[in-house]
């Protein structure tokens, strides 16, 4: 494995920190997610390191609970998006012909309607409960994953070793698992990082519009929106969730840049 540069170490550390918040957030939180402890925007004290939010709840606890919501939803959505987009993308690359045309046209059309608008229509139609939120974002996002997987797949499929396997009579599933996936791993992991960041900011954006995660559950995007008044008076309240969002996104981007370092094009396309 290449020598890991310091920036990537920082990135990995940030991701680890956030994963810990995701898994053990609620356990670490000093107070309940909804416990009202004092007046709105009360400043930081020994008991409440980050002070109170707009409803007088402990900011640190809500950040930790919020981690589960914000990261959890985005992670679930990204994973689902990849598990849908990848196989379809590779299949389109391998099969070509009408499978490829139909899928590509469908994806192009869906990508034409901006993600936010489609998400809105679906969320309004089915209500913005968590499962609906995750599935909607995942399906919309899988269109982008499909596109990358298709390009990667085509790049690798044209390589001699893939042709040799096809000449042997290997089935599509074996080709995907053994020939394409191992070689597409690094760019795909990088793409997963980027898609996670996009989804993460998208969920936060939805909450900002009041359509994402419903109160009183904490999610970082919603917390920035609820506390944004504070910034005009020099209060820190909105800075904590915003910093949390930025930190995680920067962390992931650092790792992504490292993974893509040097390789400007997906592996194999350089022929």
């Amino acid at each position, binding site marked *: 494995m290449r020598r890991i540069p310091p920036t990537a170490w920082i990135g990995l550390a940030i991701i680890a920190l956030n994963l810990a918040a995701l898994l053990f957030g609620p356990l670490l939180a000093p107070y309940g997610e909804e416990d009202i402890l004092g007046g709105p925007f009360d400043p930081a004290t020994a008991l409440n390191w980050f002070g109170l939010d707009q409803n007088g709840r402990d900011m640190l606890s809500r950040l930790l609970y919020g981690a589960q919501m914000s990261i959890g939803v985005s992670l679930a959505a990204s994973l689902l998006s990849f598990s849908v987009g990848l196989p379809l993308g590779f299949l389109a690359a391998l099969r070509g012909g009408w499978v490829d045309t139909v899928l590509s046209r469908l994806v192009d059309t869906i990508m034409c309607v901006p993600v936010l608008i489609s998400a809105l229509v679906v969320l309004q139609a089915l209500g913005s409960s968590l499962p609906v939120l995750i599935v909607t974002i995942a399906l919309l996002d899988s269109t982008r994953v499909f596109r990358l997987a298709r390009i990667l797949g085509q790049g690798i499929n044209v390589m001699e070793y893939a042709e040799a396997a096809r000449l*042997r009579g290997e089935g599509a599933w074996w080709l995907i698992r053994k020939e394409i996936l191992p070689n597409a791993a690094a760019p795909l992991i990088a793409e997963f990082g980027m898609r996670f960041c996009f989804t993460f900011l998208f969920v936060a954006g939805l909450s900002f519009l009041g359509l994402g995660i419903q109160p009183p559950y904490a999610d970082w995007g919603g917390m920035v929106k609820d506390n944004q008044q504070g910034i005009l008076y020099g209060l820190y309240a909105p800075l904590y969730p915003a910093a949390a969002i930025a930190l995680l996104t920067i962390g992931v981007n650092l790792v992504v840049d490292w993974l893509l370092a040097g390789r400007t094009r997906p592996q194999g396309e350089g022929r």
Partner: protein
Amino acid sequence: MSDILTIRGLRIEAPNGAVLVHGIDLDLKKGEVLGLIGESGAGKSTIGLAAMGWGRGGCRIAGGTVAIGGQEVTAESPAGRARLRGARIAYVAQSAAAAFNPALTIGRQVLEGPRHHRAMGKAEARAWMLELFRALDLPDPDHFGDRYPHQVSGGQLQRAMVAMAMSCRPDILVLDEPTTALDVTTQIEVLALLRRLIQRYGTAALYITHDLAVVAQIADRIQVLRHGKPVELGPTEQVLEAPREDYTRRLVGERQASLAGEPRRHEGGAELLAVDGISAAYHKVPVLSDVSLSLRRGETLAVVGESGSGKSTLARVITGLLQPTAGSVRLDGQALPASYTARGRDLLRRIQLVYQLPDVALNPRQTVGEAIGRPLGFYFGLKGREQKQEVGRLLGLIGLDPDFAGRLPGALSGGQKQRVCIARALAAKPDLMICDEVTSALDPLVAEEILRLLRRLQDELGVAYLFITHDLGVVRRLADRTAVMQRGRVVEQGPTEEIFTPPFHDYTGRLVASVPELRRDWLDQVLATRATA
């Protein structure tokens, strides 16, 4: 004649610290041509570029000095070195197609050098360019400059590259395998033009190549290199006729064998493969027309021709990767479905294909053991220990240590990777192995070993070869029968011995005549005969 280029104790390191060149001394007199000979990894190109103060891919000059006409390049600032490049010393790359910027006209790129170095006025530079175009026999010289690189042929582009290098009347030319990427027939023309140009303008040159016969025609002296260290230096005749070092002797010996080589005869064996009336096309552009040939069990049929002759396309039709527009292919009398997807698993097993570039023929993420083991499992259901044992046997068969099974392709050399590809093909116990230019990407000595291996395997296993190549030396040493192809047609086919003894079919004749021989005056002789014919 004073030295135009003096290199003392040159040391070059790669970005990861590996040393590519270990202290080289080199002198080049004005107007002299020095040949740099060696296999890949010998550091030939690195030295050539170092003479211009340039490190490719982050390599840097770690020690020693380079001086051009007394001016020390290594002491100059980057800007100072840039002023020298193109003006005093110029570079001609191996692949002109990649070296020309596709977005600009050829003329503009040729004139860029003189205008940048303000070597001459606009009109004068243009006139000099036209003179060069005429000297290099380029068609319609006045308008050739207005064309874009992808609008001219490979040979013409290579000559345009030479014109670009000469545009500032440099003192030294660094020629980095200038004719290797060309077909044999065009190679002669470029070589002849290059030699005349150098002699006429008294430009010194470093001629970098791995082909002794080519360098013999143009170099005054030859420096043999291996792994970044000098092996032998001497006048061309001495190095060719009486090499002092053992490594040089092997190089010369191998080139000698490829020219001579006693043909083989294979007797008997039922007809295995029958191709008749095959025509094929890519995007409606015809590539093969009415090709017919046959191959018997255990026999080797060579299909030889220049690039664009359709020989690789024929291989794709036989393997079913490309559907022909007409004709049929029969294996053991049984007609093969046009597309490989329609062929049964056993039919697919019996024909195996080995590719030209070993680097991309093996999945970088699969170990050698997996690559060879998969066909065993897939065709014969060999699993686990049995499969491991058979893989070991096959590795031994191709002369590699069984513990190679655990390695990834990345850790192997070009030759070793090609051996693994052959083992993978053999694992399927095929009746026919199609070898598509399997040696042309390898160094001469390594190629020699692969050919010897293939001959031994045929004797032991009786597998038939369909050998596709443009290298006549290979054909002489391996093929029982040969088919010569030109622009999609089989112009001649028959026992190799007959094909390669006069009287020649005119195209075959020209092919044979274009293969440089290991004597200094070969080119002069060919030009003389061509002038009279």
